[in-house]
């Protein structure tokens, strides 16, 4: 049976997907995840989830359009009137937007 493992480096960090373990039951899955994924990197906690419990939505599933199909620029800070006191936030948002557009373009190729 396959289990998906998520590791949290420090308290309050997000859990990040780190891989799988194969184990016949939850107890062994936890034990194996401990040595396979929590041994050599800083670890505050692990989530171990049975593969079957993970629901998936695919980009090419019928009716699925991640982000929608119409223009929604209002999602980005650059679409609003602001002054220089927001400069940093705007730059960060700008970068984020550009990266997202690049990544989406990449994924569509």
């Amino acid at each position: 049976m396959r289990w998906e493992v998520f590791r949290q480096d420090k308290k309050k960090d997000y859990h990040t997907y780190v891989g799988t373990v194969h184990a016949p039951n939850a107890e062994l899955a936890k034990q194996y995840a401990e040595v396979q994924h929590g041994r050599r990197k800083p670890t505050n906690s692990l989530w171990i989830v049975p593969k079957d419990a993970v629901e998936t939505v695919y980009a090419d599933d019928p009716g699925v359009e991640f982000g929608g199909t119409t223009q929604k620029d209002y999602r980005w800070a650059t679409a609003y009137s602001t002054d220089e006191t927001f400069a940093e936030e705007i730059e960060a948002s700008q970068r984020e937007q550009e990266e997202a557009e690049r990544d989406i373009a990449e994924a569509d190729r």
Partner: protein
Amino acid sequence: MSPDRSTDAPEPGSLGGPDDLDDETRTAVEAELRCLADDDFVVAERYTEWQVRGPTLEADIGIGNIAQDELGHARLWYDLLEDFGHDETDLVWEADPGDFRHATLVELPFETGDWADCVVRSYLYDHYEELRLEALRESSYPRIVDRVGKVLGEEPYHREHAENWLERLAEDAGGRRRLQEALDRLYPHALTLFEPTDQEDAIVALGIRREPLDVLREEWRAIVVPVLAGLGLEVPEGDDADLLPDARGRDGTHTDAWEPLFHEFTHTYHDLGREEAVSLMPDPDEADV
């Protein structure tokens, strides 16, 4: 508290450092350390044989991790023997196989693919180990007290791993049969874990260990027998004297499996023409390990 417990033994941690001990005390401390170190070293050596041969990739990594833990523990105990002027070379690599005082349980070979043996062995060994180490928490020898907590900290994983597999294998008749065969074969050798060295009386009287081995053996039996019986296994019955194998380990006598294993793990040392052990890690006293 056991009636055998020596109540007028020296207080925990009161014996002082290695240079403060008289000859009698030093001999007793060395005897206790030698058993701890050799058990962990040899059991790790055998576990390592499962690396890339376990029932699953995860089982390989799990048992490999346990082997690493046990090697680390052996290193801590051998290091305390080095306080008395020994070095790793004469303790291990250029030792005589008859110098080793591990129990015969840990030296036995595994039949190819007999994972049930590994599980039963680990279950019997790790429960023994917990009891012996707990009886060292308040040792009169402070160098042992300093390290025993760290060693105990890695042991719950070993017990849980063994118990989990034990339950898993006991779920069907085929698994139970394999467990039973392993138990019949290993149980007499597990009893040698509790065999005394010729220093046993001194070890207890001097408070180096707080419980005598025969008391620990009964505590161990009270833990493992009901669990094994609850899984549908029959624990061999009879007087320990009748069950015990001829070789006892603790007195330097070993089964036929020991010399080949000893030559196997010292082979590379001799093959490379080594005269001293190469140290890869800082001394345990200088690093928090």
